[in-house]
């Protein structure tokens, strides 16, 4: 929770994380950020100022779609879920990410 532990996410990376998070099922914005934070063990913190523009961008691109629903706490919220093309995009980006990570890792080890 301290500022040192916070990592700024590149734009493309945030998209990837959102898509991946939504793979488990529909979720509203706050839940997405909480989940990313939880799973990354508080290393990755999603700034709301980037989260919502990213959600709107992904929706505009047709990778996710939004619906109003009632949250587990009884509050009305906007729920996002993956579309078919979003699923495909997730595969592509996961693949890209793996290759990039692999490449960087190799450079760090061997160079």
């Amino acid at each position: 929770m301290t500022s040192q532990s916070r990592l700024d996410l590149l734009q493309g990376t945030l998209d990837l994380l959102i898509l991946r998070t939504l793979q488990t099922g529909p979720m509203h914005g706050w839940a997405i950020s909480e989940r990313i934070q939880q799973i990354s063990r508080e290393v990755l913190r999603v700034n709301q100022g980037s989260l919502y523009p990213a959600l709107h961008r992904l929706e505009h691109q047709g990778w996710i779609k939004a619906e109003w629903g009632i949250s587990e706490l009884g509050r009305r919220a906007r729920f996002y879920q993956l579309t078919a093309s979003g699923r495909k995009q997730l595969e592509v980006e996961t693949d890209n990410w793996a290759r990039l990570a692999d490449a960087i890792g190799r450079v760090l080890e061997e160079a």
Partner: protein
Amino acid sequence: MEDELDEELRSHLEFQTRKHLAAGLDPKEAQRRSRVEFGAVELTKEECRDERRVNVIDNFIQDVRYAMRVLRRDPMLALTAMLTLAICIGANTTVFSLVNSIILRPLSYPQSERLYWVSERMGKDQLELSHAPDYYSLREQNKVFEDVAAYDPSTVNWTSAEKAEQLDSAQVAPSFFNVLSSQPLMGRYLARAEEGPKASPVVVLSYSFWRSRMGSDPNIVGKSITLDSLQRTVIGVMPQGFDYPKGTQVWVPLPFDDASQRPRLISRPMWIVNMVARLRPNISQQQLDTDLDRMAIAIRREYPKEFTAVGFLDSMNILARPLRRQMQGDLRPALLVLSGAVALVLLIACANLANLLLARATARERELAVRMALGSGRARIVRQVLTESLALAVPGGLAGILMAALAIAYLNASKPFVLQSYPPISLDISTLTFTFTLTFVTGLVFGIAPAFAAAGISIQDALKSASHMQSGGKRATTLRHVLVVAELGLSLVLLIGAGLLARSFIALARTDLGFSAQNLLTLRVNLVNSRYATVESRAQFYDDLLGRILRLPMVQRAAVATDIPLSGERHWGNLRFQVVGRSPLPLAQRPTADTTVVSGDFFRTLGIPLRNGRTFDEQDSTKAADSIVINEAFAKKILPGEDPIGRYISSRKGSPDWRIVGVVGTIRSSDLGADPPPLIYRCTCQGNSFLSRMGIFVKTTGDARQAVRAIEEEVSATDRNTPVFDVKTMEDRLNDSLASQEFQLVLIGTFASIAIILAAVGVYGVMSYLVTLRTREIGIRVAMGARLEHVLRLVLGESFALTGVAIAAGLFGAWALSRYLKSLLYGVTALDGFTFAIMPLGLAGIAIAASLVPALRASRIDPITALREE
């Protein structure tokens, strides 16, 4: 939408606050903390909106702004492109407005697409002329027309208290106005029974005649005017725009009717008429043709003897042509060729601009690569490059419209002879639609090659600076070569077209008229007063008039004749005859010749040379009336290898044979371009039928125009009720005959010039680019000891190769298109060897000249600088 965004963010804050509450914070603190964590709510909202607003329109505006910036960076390119476009789109718009005004725009009659011009067509020359009896048969028995109307355009002599004037008139059937579905502006038009020899003397006035000559008299109906010395009662005035046949000022009833024309008898004079008809709704072209064929057969069956006698039985058919097409006349093929030519110019311009933009796209490769690396998709890049070309095209198109407006204003003001019989040209909605579409299509066409070349850029290659010059890409270079070959090839097509037209213009202008047109004034008079009922009285008038004219100081000679050469008006009869002393032939196989009646001094007035025998003199009189003079064409065609002098010909049983006394040179009697037919001259001095309507020829010592006034006064002094009309010098008539050829030549010549300039610029551009691209290579060659001519050869060789391919393509194109030009040519074939040989040489010369500058630049490349540049 806005509310939803608000609600969504508020829900987030609430969830966060609840989380803090659950962690044990007091409500106030929990709220405060979640707000702080969230940061600037408004900014987030703004960013969300931004993410959504990235849409087509926004992108477009962004692209346009960007395009403007790019264009401003290179104003010379922008200016060149816009100027090229303005000229080409202007030329296209002008030609389209001509086509639109003359060919496309419907006639101003209701449902004018159902109006047809109908005619009988017969003989081996496919002569289009209709006979009145057949008009009545057709009108009665056809199954496809609502109504058919016969009409016969002519002129009448209108005499008023102040003056006498010759008017264009038409004798029409009562159904005429019905067929054209027009209501009179005031009064009525002809009633059903108002035709025939005893038709009541009535007249319908045109709007322009009513306005200009009758002072828009609102009470004109019921008054009378004198036409050909007959008092006619005005029964109606037609509205403005009712103008058929073109230029008609008054309509009068036909002087014949069904009863006086049918049955068709060879012994009875038949009227030759024109026919216009209105098709019934929903009749197909095939139904129309079938019914007309049926009618033609029925008419031929009805009068087998008549048709056999003149030998037309098997060939007479009936045709119907859309009235609009009929009225377009001779200009149609020329306009179609012009449209094709001007479209080629635009294509060349597109190729040229594509080339210019390609050159720039290459220079901009790194910029575009950077944009792509920053996340612009290829589609976006293509769109942006296309937007740039549209940003060039739209102002170019607007400037083009302006140029077209100027050109059209000029055409309407100067009214070249070829356009005189058509309505004024206008820049209307359909022309503007055409131009806007054209502008956009043009923008897309010349933008597509650069756009895809840009999208094809490999990011890695372009960003590697070391290879920046070579990375222009083989593809782009090939594309540029293809474009320049296309430009040169299309230019060659235009050059050959212009060359062929120039050759025919020269051939036509150099045509030997057979007479001297210099200082020769021609005019017509029409004797219609009852004073001139007899041949003698008419002869007396002309004798008096010629005597008076000859006494004028600047007059050398004067003559009268039934016809004026090159006037487009023919009165002479076509005669079938037998050569006396040869075995008699059936009518259909007899030779034919035109006949014309001239006064004794005609040949000397026109300077027609006597080849053999004599012309008319004192021996020829009413008592010795059998002499004729023939032209050389007659002698060659009908009496080849024989001495014609003293030979007799006979035309009709019972009338005396004619004796040939002289042979004169052949003159271009009707059309400048038509081969003159055999012609028989007879003399007015023999009491031959002096027509009421005669042409008068006056040879003057100086400029013939200066004699006009004096001659008009002499005619008026001879008879003040006889107006002079169709006054023109023979040189003017000659110019008019050349006018349409000249018009086509000037336009196609202009287009070809634009094309060749564009092509030269294109070649220059490509060669310059090539030299820039190979600076290093050339530098190395020079460093290795290559001499000047090697370097020159390197560049010029490339240019030669491109031109060679272009010439082959261009020759093929010209060959393929030549048949469209055929109908416009005279005295030269559409595959004229001279033109096809000389134009490619010219093109090659220009292409080499255009690549000379880059070649010289290449030869001056300093190897040290060239190598350091990298």
